[in-house]
């Protein structure tokens, strides 16, 4: 039985309760008080002491229209669809009183939020890379770093296709989300999922979660949000499906995710082969150069 996360970013309100709950339960230290100035995201990225990270995709340049049907508002400047106004003959006004589609927050821009986490990949780069066997797949299907084995070689860090694992400098070992191994052993859901006030983070059996997620995509499309899609489900990648998958509403790159993640170890065989070919060639050349008589 594999458990995982379904993070539905369309439900995320950016409250960062998951970040805080994770830090609190796992007793992770604070990361300082630096402000990025780029957005409400001052956490910036996942790290050794940050196992949940809420990304804020904020821009004023997309300027999507946010029509709001408000029948109690005055209908000054109202236009119907028939004369080029809002769709469905709904009375629409702008906040500045001008007629048109844009009602509510002018220039609201694009504002997406996403609580990022370790993906606990089906084929995990960090797990394959780990030379000590410290990284294992536990009984709940999660990728887990055994802290008593890790010797801080740091090879898992560049081997993660999502840039999740990191070394903790003062400690020396690699850390990342454990999918709350300890809580799961007691039959509890992970701290982040427990804390999420909108159920944007759902925890459970992966098969159930995937069924929910697929239906959620259909629901959103019915409502007109036709850009909604699942990231990490039914994928054709060497990494395989993700035990922590996402419902996204923009291209993966916008969230700092690769379009098509590649398992680094999928290159090992060809790489060894090229080494072997070169080794044979050099052996022959060297042997011949010694064999020649003077």
């Amino acid at each position, binding site marked *: 039985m594999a458990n995982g996360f379904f993070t539905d970013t369309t439900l995320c309100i950016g409250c960062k309760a998951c970040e805080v709950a994770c830090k609190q339960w796992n007793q992770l230290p604070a990361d300082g008080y630096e402000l990025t100035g780029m957005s409400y995201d001052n956490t*910036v990225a996942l790290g050794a002491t940050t196992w949940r990270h809420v990304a804020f*995709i904020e*821009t004023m*340049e*997309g300027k999507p*229209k946010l029509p709001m*049907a408000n029948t109690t508002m005055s209908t000054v400047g109202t236009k119907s669809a028939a004369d080029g106004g809002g769709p*469905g003959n709904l009375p629409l006004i702008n906040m500045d009183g001008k007629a048109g589609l844009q009602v509510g927050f002018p220039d609201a821009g*694009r504002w997406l939020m996403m609580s990022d986490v370790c993906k606990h990949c089906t084929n995990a780069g960090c797990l394959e890379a*780990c030379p*000590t*066997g410290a990284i294992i797949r536990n009984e709940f299907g999660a990728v887990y770093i055994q802290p008593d*084995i*890790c*010797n*801080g*070689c*740091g*090879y898992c860090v*560049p*081997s993660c*296709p*999502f*840039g999740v694992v*990191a070394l903790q400098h003062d400690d020396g*070992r690699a850390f990342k989300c454990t999918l709350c191994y300890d809580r799961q052993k007691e039959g509890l859901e992970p701290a982040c999922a427990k804390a999420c006030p909108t159920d944007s983070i759902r925890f459970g059996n992966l098969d159930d979660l995937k069924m929910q997620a*697929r*239906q959620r*995509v259909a629901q959103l499309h*019915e409502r*007109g*949000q036709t*850009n*909604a899609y699942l*990231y990490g489900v039914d*994928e*054709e990648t060497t990494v395989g499906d993700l035990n922590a998958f996402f419902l996204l509403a*923009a*291209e993966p*790159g*916008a969230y*700092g995710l*690769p379009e*098509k*993640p*590649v398992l680094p170890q999928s*290159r*090992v065989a060809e*790489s060894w082969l*090229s*080494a*072997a070919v*070169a080794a044979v060639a050099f*052996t022959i050349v*060297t*042997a011949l*150069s*010694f*064999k020649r008589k*003077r």
Partner: protein
Amino acid sequence: MKLLSSLFAAQSGPAVRQEAPQGSPLGRRGRRGIGKTEFTSYYGRPILKKPHWVWPVWTYFWLGGVAGGASTIAALADLFGDKELDKSIVRAGRYVSLAGMMVSPVLLIIDLQRPERFLHMLRVVKLKSPLNVGTYILTITGLLSGFNAARQVVEDGFIPEESLPGKLAILSSSDATQVLQGVAGLGLGGYTGVLLSATAVPLWGDNSKILPPLFLSSAFATGAAAITLVQALGGASEEEMERLDGIEQVATLSELALMSVAAAKLKPEMRKAIGNYRFFFLGAMLEGVIAPLLLKWFGPKHGQGLRVINIIRAVLTLGAGYMLRFAVIEAGKATAQDPDSYHAITQGRARPTPEEQARQGQELQTEATQAI
């Protein structure tokens, strides 16, 4: 209900998957004439985390290459070479490899962030982890190098053959251990390239078939250079030193060829991310390939002049090998920090389109309703 959905349709249809304009934190388009490429990113922040590796790692990559190359050259010289003429090569090769093998593990252990746990490297066997395999290669090469160098020490008369250490040294080494050391040396010279290739780092991953032969070429070039250096300083004859020239030239020229291929097929995003590290690659080629060849062709051909030239050539080649490892690691880190470079190697269709996913979800919904 229909009204509501039509409202949202007006809102979100084109709203999110639209192209981000230039200068937006979401994406930059056609920057600096890169052309068609257009990637979105999260405020230009790195997607990947770069490895922490610094000087112990590139020093080890270089030194392991020198020792590996010297091991293989010494074994082949003993097997196929002239018993008298190539004696100094075998001898120097064994000592060079011993010296390298004595320092290499120390470098690797101090690079660990928990050095006291270095033995954990040998608690499992994982063929898919080049770092794990490499640790075994290093351990085996180190052991064999010790055996074969010990025999050399006895043969050179530093330890009497009749003494207990002398007898043990002769016992521990044979033609078999020497051949095995030669084979292990090939592994030692090449596995570091495989190790880098098997990461998500764009520069390394995208050159997975070039890095291992490149590092192996450098291993042979620097291994031969180290032996030449010992020969030249140890007063070997001109004929003895000349025996390695062929290997050195083949190795350095294949380095140049592999670097050229890598440079030609380097993705524009990575070219930009690498930036000034390109000068280190260029420097390594000038110093390690071009300069030694020019010195060989136009330098003095005999006498004390040749000896000096050989020393200079060897030092240049060794330095270039070091610079190459440094440049590969640091340039790799630079590409790991660049989201565009990573997007460039993670393109392609990975999942059903949003529409296909919605259709599938609808079917599931219908099934669920029917079940009720």
